[in-house]
């Protein structure tokens, strides 16, 4: 009886998850009347804006990951090593982007860094791109920081640092050749979440008026019928791939560490 109810709930929930995905895939395949075809995908791939916005977003995602790692790894390392009493404060600050809606943050950017301000980032294309990059880094901060901080917890930061110092290593060497290789898995899992966030992000890119994938998706949705479903299916595959890679990376290292 209990097991039956459990199965019923589970199947109901899974139907809720899976039906929209089936609907989306089915719709994306039915552009031609009366048959299934990849016509919608062909149209999407033939659209130059698709490749332009996609490559723009991929580039932004990669830059965000590099920037985020360069910002978070040294900070998290330093806080663990020298400023443990600051940890709760830093942790609280990194969680703020989950509390403050993205639309409010970007609203602040537009008001604070407009052309008549002391730092007119929105005045030039490069400046706006930079602002978008910082915005993405802010949005991914909670995931990046938590992931890397958890990674640092599993290694003995103080001992590793002292050992490296006694061998004559400077701070850059310690970070790049001792700490980073040890927390690479955490950096990667943070990186994949960041990638998934940036690829689908709409609000920041739309309000800063940058040609990213999210606004392109929305534009297509407002004007076309079948192509949006094809694009959503592609986005879903990207998200899945990112999450799958996180699982793979974490599992891989577990096996790696087990024998020792």
């Amino acid at each position, binding site marked *: 009886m*209990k097991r039956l109810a*459990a199965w019923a*709930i*589970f199947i109901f929930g899974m139907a809720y998850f899976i*039906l929209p995905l089936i609907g989306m895939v089915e719709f994306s395949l039915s552009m031609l009347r009366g048959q299934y075809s990849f016509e919608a995908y062909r149209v999407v791939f033939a659209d130059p804006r698709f490749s332009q916005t996609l490559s723009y977003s991929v580039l932004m995602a990669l830059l965000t990951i590099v920037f985020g790692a360069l910002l978070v790894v040294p*900070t998290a390392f330093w806080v663990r090593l020298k400023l443990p009493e600051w940890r709760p404060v830093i942790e609280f600050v990194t969680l703020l982007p989950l509390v403050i809606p993205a639309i409010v943050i970007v609203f602040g950017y537009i008001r604070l860094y407009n052309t008549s301000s002391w730092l007119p980032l929105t005045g030039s294309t490069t400046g706006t791109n930079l602002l978008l990059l910082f915005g993405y880094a802010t949005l991914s901060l909670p995931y990046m920081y938590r992931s890397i901080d958890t990674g640092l917890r599993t290694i003995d930061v103080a001992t590793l640092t002292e050992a490296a110092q006694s061998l004559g290593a400077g*701070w850059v060497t310690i970070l790049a050749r001792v700490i980073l290789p040890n927390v690479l898995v955490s950096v990667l899992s943070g990186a994949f979440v960041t990638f998934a966030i940036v690829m689908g992000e709409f609000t920041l890119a739309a*309000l800063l008026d940058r040609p990213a994938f999210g606004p392109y998706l*929305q534009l297509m949705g407002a004007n076309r019928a079948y192509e949006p479903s094809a694009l959503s299916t592609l986005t879903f595959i990207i998200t899945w791939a990112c999450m799958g890679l996180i699982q793979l990376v974490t599992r891989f290292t577990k096996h790696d560490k087990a024998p020792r």
Partner: protein
Amino acid sequence: MTDTSPPAAPPIAPRRRLSFAWLGIVPFALFVGLFLIAPTMKIVIGAFQRADGSFTLENLAGLFTPSILSSYWISIKISVASAALGALIGFLMAAAMVLGGLPRFIRAPLLTFSGVASNFAGVPLAFAFLATLGPLGLVTVWLRTEFGINLRAYGFNILSFWGLTITYIFFQIPLMILIITPALDGLKREWREAAQSLGASAVQYWTSVALPILFPSLLGTFALLFANAFGAVATAIALTGSSLNIVPIMLFAQIRGDVLGNPHLGYAMAFGMILITALANILYIWLRMRSERWLK
């Protein structure tokens, strides 16, 4: 991007109490200050200012006009409905998985899937639901051709309150599963056995032991789901365009083109959003700390 270089070696004097160790987090502090704190403060302060910079409460009072008030009300209703339904279904699914005797091999895939699904929000999610429950959607057409049920005739429209709520639930359920599963794992077998040996029925065990213990977790997660739905912009815009006046959509239009005719009223709307999500999150954190007394 010069401010991201690893902390330059400051003169470290570990034995002296006065140290320069704080220099190491200057790049981080600078970044967070410039791109998280300062923009937010700008909005908060702007909500209390006139165009000439003088202090006022007029903007906040301006929120209490019927159109803005109703947009907050719709937003809150959608957030409460999607958080409540998402929390309920997510809790039942997690309970079915942890306590209901489902085979163990279901657990890992379900948790992984929840991780993916809770991240699959925004514009693509809206399209998935349009393709499923929209006028030409899979389920809509199927119900009409196979059963003769016309969803439209029952007043259902994906571009409405319930349409948006049903769509939001898609990312609410998996988030609930991810957060509540550890709490359910923390229910000790001994508690159930103790209750049983004292003659409690299953219903009594749940109402007087398990649910009171889980209550802070449940309510706290509900608050988190509420904030999650309240701040969602992209899904709403992609799904309804501007046909449903919820706060994020109104704010989006305001930032794009000052539709309210007063820039500082936009600040006030944004401030209202921060206030509501912050309250929900404070509730979450506080209840979480309470629940950790028992669980774990």
